[in-house]
């Protein structure tokens, strides 16, 4: 084969490979930093690599502590700890995946250079959508919260649906029982918010038992809650977040610009049918609930 022929073959090969992936994507170097190597992050990493356009170079740092500034095109962090570490240590563009939306402002202030995020929490509108789909008769939504919870957004979402927010600020660790009783006295559903000071493996028992005794269902924010005895939950799995993050990376590869921070696009629901039956609730199949939530909560916010 002549030299021209070889060049032509190479050109076509390059062209063909370009069809199979996004242009520019093939030479992007991505450094994925996990908060640690536990299964949660491994699940994300595995799904992320599978969802990523082929040809991107992915390096993986298994522990946030092992990360140090190094040459790369884009850093993708998984979890809060990795996000902080990368924001502090490097100035490369940073996509912080699987972080609560409440952590973003702080991270943004800390970071030099461009930053964006894929949040792990569902927008209030979506949560309100779940409540009104599954429990349309229950209008008094109880929330027990402590630091760093901005529930103003929830309040306006509920008001839009003519629901009432019964919110109590946790007085302290010792007052959990009293504060919980206060909320339960006034509510007909308890909406759990992520707050390890209130909801943890030790306290969940008392919270679920107290609400169950009063005939008040708990709405959680993960399938673990539903297994434990919550009526239902809306959440995004690590795989769903990974797919969205891969999409954001692909977009960055095309435009060289990070997309805006975004709430999860894909989400799941779980319903504990045994608990529903005990509460005498007739609940639609999961698909119908998801459809209804999509219809009622519209966009992402």
């Amino acid at each position, binding site marked *: 084969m002549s030299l021209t022929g070889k060049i032509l073959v190479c050109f076509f090969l390059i062209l063909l490979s370009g069809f199979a992936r996004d242009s520019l994507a093939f030479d992007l170097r991505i450094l994925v930093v996990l908060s640690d190597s536990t299964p949660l992050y491994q699940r994300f990493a595995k799904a992320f690599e599978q969802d990523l356009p082929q040809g991107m170079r992915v390096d993986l740092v298994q522990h946030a502590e092992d990360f140090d500034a190094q040459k790369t095109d884009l850093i993708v962090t998984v979890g*809060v700890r990795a996000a902080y570490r990368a924001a502090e240590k490097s100035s490369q563009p940073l996509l912080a995946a699987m972080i609560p939306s409440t952590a973003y402002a702080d991270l943004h202030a800390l970071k030099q250079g461009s930053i964006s995020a894929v949040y792990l929490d569902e927008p209030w509108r979506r949560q309100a959508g779940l409540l009104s789909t599954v429990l349309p008769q229950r209008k008094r939504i109880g929330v027990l919260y402590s630091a760093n919870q901005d529930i103003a957004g929830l309040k306006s979402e509920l008001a839009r649906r003519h629901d009432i927010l019964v919110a109590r600020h946790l*007085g302290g660790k010792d007052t959990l*029982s009293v504060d919980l009783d206060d909320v339960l006295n006034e509510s007909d559903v308890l909406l759990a918010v992520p707050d390890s000071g209130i909801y943890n493996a*030790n*306290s*969940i028992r*008392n919270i679920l038992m107290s609400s169950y005794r009063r005939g008040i269902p708990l709405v959680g924010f993960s399938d673990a809650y539903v*297994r434990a005895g919550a009526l239902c939950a809306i959440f995004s799995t690590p795989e769903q977040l990974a797919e969205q993050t891969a999409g954001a990376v692909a977009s960055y590869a095309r435009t060289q610009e990070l997309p805006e921070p975004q709430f999860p696009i894909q989400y799941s629901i779980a319903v504990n049918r*045994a608990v529903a039956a005990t509460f005498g609730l007739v609940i639609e199949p999961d698909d119908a609930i998801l459809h209804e939530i999509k219809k009622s909560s519209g966009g992402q916010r």
Partner: protein
Amino acid sequence: MKKRYLAMLCLACKTGYAVEDVNESDYYQDLPVVLSASRLSQPLSDAPNAMTVIDRKMIVASGFRTIADLMKLVPGMYVSYYKGSQPIVAYHGATDEFSRRMQVLIDGRSVYMPPTGSVNWADLPITVDDIERIEVIRGPAAASYGANSTQGVISIITRDAGAMNGKSVSYTHGDKGINDAEARFGKRGDAYDYRVTLAYTADNGYDSLTTPPNGYTMATFKAPGLLYNSNDSNQARLFNYRGDYHPNGIDRYDIQFGFNHDVQGVGFSDKNPSIYNNYKGTNGDPFHNLIGNSDFAQLGWTRQLEQGAELSLRYSHTRQDQYEAFPVYLAGNYYPGPVVQSLQTTRDEIEVQHTLPLNDTNRLVYGAGSQVDRVGGQSAMPPISLYNSSSYVYNEYRLFAHDEWRMSQKWLLNLGGMFEKNDLGQFNTSPRIALNYHVAPDQTLRAGVSVAYRTPATAETSYPLMQPGALIVPTSTVNSPGLQPEKLVSREIGYVGEFPEWATSVDLRLYSDLLSNGIYLSSTAQSFVNGMSGEYHGFEATLKHEFDTDNSLTLNFAHAWAASNGALLAAGGQRVMVSSDPTNSDILSASIPSNSASLLYMVRLPHDYSFSAAGYYQAAMQPFDRGAIDYQPIERRVDVRIARALNFPGNLKGNVALVLQNLLNQAYTEYIASNLFNRRGYVSLTLDW
């Protein structure tokens, strides 16, 4: 308060988000299974039986001080009193003073005790405040609960160990010597919760009457002593403890024990030689005290297995001792005595149960159990040189299985069976099949058939001819060796409907129960024999309506009738089968109130007030085993409760309540006519912190 300010200050001075704030592990953390299959109560629409649930709210709103009275809120339940502290709780009309056809359980532990096969309500080591809810299965449930649940099961579920975190004291004072004091405290911990109750309850039972009830003349009420049959005070001192150790998300240990010391006034004045020395009776049962000591210990272990499966093991030990001593009057002679009678009863029970979801639509529960009952009785009657001492041990073994199969969205099949073997050489199989059809998600039709047996009680197999006093001490020899269990076959059709748009639910039941091998005291043989047969038919309805979340109404109605071979047996010389009702020669039929109803209305009012009103109705009937004098005319009663929650500065809260029973003073007579229920009231004050 100081702490809260401090926390808020810290929040204010804190800048920046910390990793220990909300992070992804809050979202994805593993949690223990809390509301497991055994914790969740089965919804009425899926249950294989008709069931009435009396929850905490209803318990409080009813104003009742005793567990037996709460049964008035169950459609078709007969609640009446032999003595002030000796209630008779029976389904399908009155029984004799020992209601033997209902199984009663407290947290799964049977309190249906030998030798009479009945429940000593006054001796139970729990108070009404210890109860979380009561599930009453109307109709036999032997497939799940074993022998002796021929007419139904009263399953009392006490408050969880973690139900209380703090301290509470209450005092109740009112008419008829009502004086109850109770202290309760509990603590919730990360791995261990416990609660403790200490209580004293006392009342004087029924009034001493001075005029005959029900319009009778003194001449009709022949023995003047009948009017003073009111030595029926009761004082109970009790204690109970419940602990729940949950070291991980998988295992749960339930630890319970309790004690009750009870002193009941018993005896009858017309048999009391010191008052009526012209009385020439021979069966002396004068006023005296019946002293009861009962205790229990219960250990339970529950382990969560994979895929919603669960393994549980339960052991319990129950003891009931009773003692009485009194003088007698025999054939015109007064013997200062004393006659002394005592009973010692213990039960040790162990049960293992495996709950196994076979797939999404099929759940199997199966297990095995064993119990040992020990009965000891002594009766010493020095005046006639009669001494009786008896001792019995009964072993019972059982295997059970229950399958709940959702055949489709619409069809649910409940199939169950219990196989029991006892020391009387009896082997009973109690099957049950129930098919639930969900016409719509909110509308369910149910059809079921079940079989249940009642094991003969010791007092029946070893019936004592001499029965001075309140206790029935079995004879030392079995005098009815061939006595077979009573058998009940029940068929029912039920409907459960929810109407969310009207905030209303309806529960209907139509039943037909056949009793065979019924046990009765033969006048000819002077011992208990099989041979009574009967049938019960009826209709029951419960309607619940919520006007709003603070305002609800429960309505119960029951219509029932029965027929038996009682008249035939009576004609054949069986005196106990002779009906005292001149208009009805069938003793079984006469003992059932044709209609009964109850209603409970509760409302939460502004300014922390709450109000509830209850109404009870029971048609006229002839108490089984009693003379015409004890005929019970129509019973109508209205109870009201008004309460106000108290909020003090700090953590102190409280409640003050006034209960007025039989507000309109429509006095009615109970199982024994001299028990006249007239208006009574009491006030209670509770402080919690």
